[in-house]
């Protein structure tokens, strides 16, 4: 038995540019095109043929980037707006948490707003009266329920909105990215409520960017991208596919960035640690290109924390050199040096450097926590005078499934004596 059936749904919006032609009576009359405009031919397709079923009693997650059509889909399922084509069926009472507290009137009391909001969501007066205490208790607003809503903090406002919507007790609940309301404690309460929903065999459809929520709660998940389904099925697999695509896109964006801002020539700054990004040096030797390579030799800008990485410099000596040092530094985005080293520090004696050459700096395991890092590369004399210094010109994104904190992840493991049992590590 399906709670929601979506069949080849399409939704087209008129492009905003056209709206202007249509927004004033004068222009509609002058161009004589009221009828033509009403048809709205140059449309933007937010959904391009989406089909799926949500089985009754399951929790279904939808992920996707901003603008992928998630919210549009949710609104169509909620009945706010009609699909341009296709068919949507919902079996059972539906409640949608699309914006919490939408329709609250600031001037009247929380009590009156609960009644009106509840009725808008489809409850009768008597049903609300019966659930009123529960609604107020869940929102933790017992003391303030008779104060006008305009005196509420935004957290109180959201909590009351959430509490009303969740207490509608629907068979099908649609949730659009609203869990980020209130503090930790309230979020936990909301999650408990979802779990309770699940236990009682209700159907939930969640749109969220909190991916761990999807893997934790959802039975199937779907990844929506530019109005089409990219993946559908086991949440873990869907999320992995989605993350991979996000990484690939970030990669393309980062690869495009250095080209956009070609290294500028600048004089060396007085204080190296305070220096902003830039490039300087006397150029007897030059760093021609910098690549970040995976173990299979492909270039990338996004790496998993546990992956091996090679930073490869293509260098050129314009005259034969015998005094040279190669160096690499990795910085967090807030400018903290995570690691820096060079061939001189590590005890290498330079002998000869001539013509075009390559230098590889190999990290067997990246070992950084998730985040974005800037990289310095340099070739300079042993006394520090730079031939060519690239200051924070390269960006590297590190991803990780484990959300640990800090900057560095040393190789580690846990052990437990008998008496403690865990799984998953």
């Amino acid at each position, binding site marked *: 038995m399906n709670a929601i059936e979506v069949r080849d749904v399409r939704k087209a*919006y008129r492009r905003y540019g056209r709206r202007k032609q*249509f*927004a*004033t*009576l*004068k222009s*509609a009359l002058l161009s004589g095109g009221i009828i033509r405009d009403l048809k709205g031919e140059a449309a933007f397709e937010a959904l391009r043929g989406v089909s799926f079923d949500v089985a009754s009693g399951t929790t279904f997650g939808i992920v996707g980037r901003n603008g992928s059509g998630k919210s549009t889909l949710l*609104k169509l399922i*909620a*009945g*706010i*707006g*009609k699909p341009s084509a296709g068919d949507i069926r919902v079996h059972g009472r539906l409640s*949608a948490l*699309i*914006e919490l507290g*939408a*329709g609250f*009137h600031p*001037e*009247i009391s929380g009590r*009156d707003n609960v*009644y*009106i909001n509840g*009725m*808008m*969501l489809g409850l*009768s*007066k008597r049903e609300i009266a019966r659930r009123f205490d529960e609604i107020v208790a869940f929102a933790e607003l017992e003391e303030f329920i008779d104060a*006008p809503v305009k005196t509420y903090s935004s957290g109180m406002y959201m909590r009351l909105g959430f509490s009303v919507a969740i207490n509608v007790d629907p068979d099908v609940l649609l949730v659009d990215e609203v869990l980020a309301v209130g503090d930790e404690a309230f979020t936990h309460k909301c999650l408990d409520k979802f779990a309770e929903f699940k236990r009682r065999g209700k159907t939930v459809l969640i749109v969220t960017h909190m991916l761990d929520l999807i893997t934790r709660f959802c039975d199937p998940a779907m990844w929506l991208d530019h109005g089409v389904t990219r993946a559908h099925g086991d949440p873990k697999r869907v999320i992995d596919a989605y993350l991979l695509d996000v990484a690939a896109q970030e990669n393309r964006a980062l690869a495009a960035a250095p080209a956009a801002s070609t290294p500028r020539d600048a004089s060396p700054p007085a204080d190296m640690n305070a220096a902003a990004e830039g490039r300087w040096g006397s150029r007897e030797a030059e760093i021609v290109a910098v690549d970040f390579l995976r173990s299979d030799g492909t270039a990338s800008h996004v790496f998993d924390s546990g992956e091996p990485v090679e930073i490869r410099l293509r260098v050129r000596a314009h005259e034969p050199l015998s005094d040279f040092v190669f160096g690499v530094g990795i910085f967090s985005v807030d400018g903290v040096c995570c690691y820096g080293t060079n061939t001189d520090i590590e005890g290498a004696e330079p002998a000869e450097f001539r013509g075009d050459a390559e230098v590889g700096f190999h990290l067997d395991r990246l070992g950084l926590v998730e985040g974005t890092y800037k990289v310095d590369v340099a070739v300079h004399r042993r006394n520090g005078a730079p031939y060519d210094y690239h200051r924070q010109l390269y960006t590297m994104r590190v991803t990780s499934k484990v959300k640990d904190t800090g900057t560095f992840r040393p190789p580690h493991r846990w052990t437990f004596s008998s008496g403690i049992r865990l799984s998953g590590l």
Partner: protein
Amino acid sequence: MLHSFRQLLRHRALIESLVARELKARYRGSALGLLWSFLNPLLLLLIYTFVFSVVMPGGRSGQVEHFPLFLFCGILPWTWFSSSLLESANVFVAGGGLLKKVLFPAEVLPIVTVLAGLVHFCLGLPILVAFILYYRVPITLDLAWLPLIVADQLLLTIGLALIVSALTVHFRDLRDLLGNLLTLAFFATPIVYPLSQAPGWAQRFLALNPFTHLAVAYQEVFVIPGPFTGWPRVIELGLVSLAVCFAGYFVFDRLRDTLAEEA
């Protein structure tokens, strides 16, 4: 359309609560509160009485018995009519966010506006009664027609409010246009002058304005002595209003799906 209408009926309680909220919220924070529902028409009456009996006493108004009472009979329902339409024009632009986020019949909002206006109208009636007592106008059985006249106006206003609210979403110009149209309609309605004083050709023109018949009916029931002779027109107007209401609902229903997107 029938389906939509059934949906609307299911939301009776919501409409009721929204009207109550509208009344509560309107004067929240003002010192005089609901008293403004009395004061507003009273002050308007004072201004018109001053203009037409003190500043320009030579006008035709001089020939009307109990001029302030006569004036009030027209102003009170007119205020209901015009403010309902003006607010309806704004109702989705102001409350548009709601349409995008909550599923409920959109026609609830303009209907609530008109009904809230009806409550204000009813709150103004005691003032009218006070005037009647003050001028010692005999109260007759004609008053029995009042509920029907009010019902006519209610249907007419709801029909127009539905059209105005839905069209304004698409044509924002309508809001400004409407203000001027209402001013024109005000003077094209025998409110500050009696219909009988207008020249014959003008009377035929004024008869095209449905509100003319409403204003005349109110005046006949409250001020003009003698039996109420205009009742056939009240029935006719009732049919016309019903037609307007249906037409309004039809137009609204056709535009319904575009409201959430455009508002």
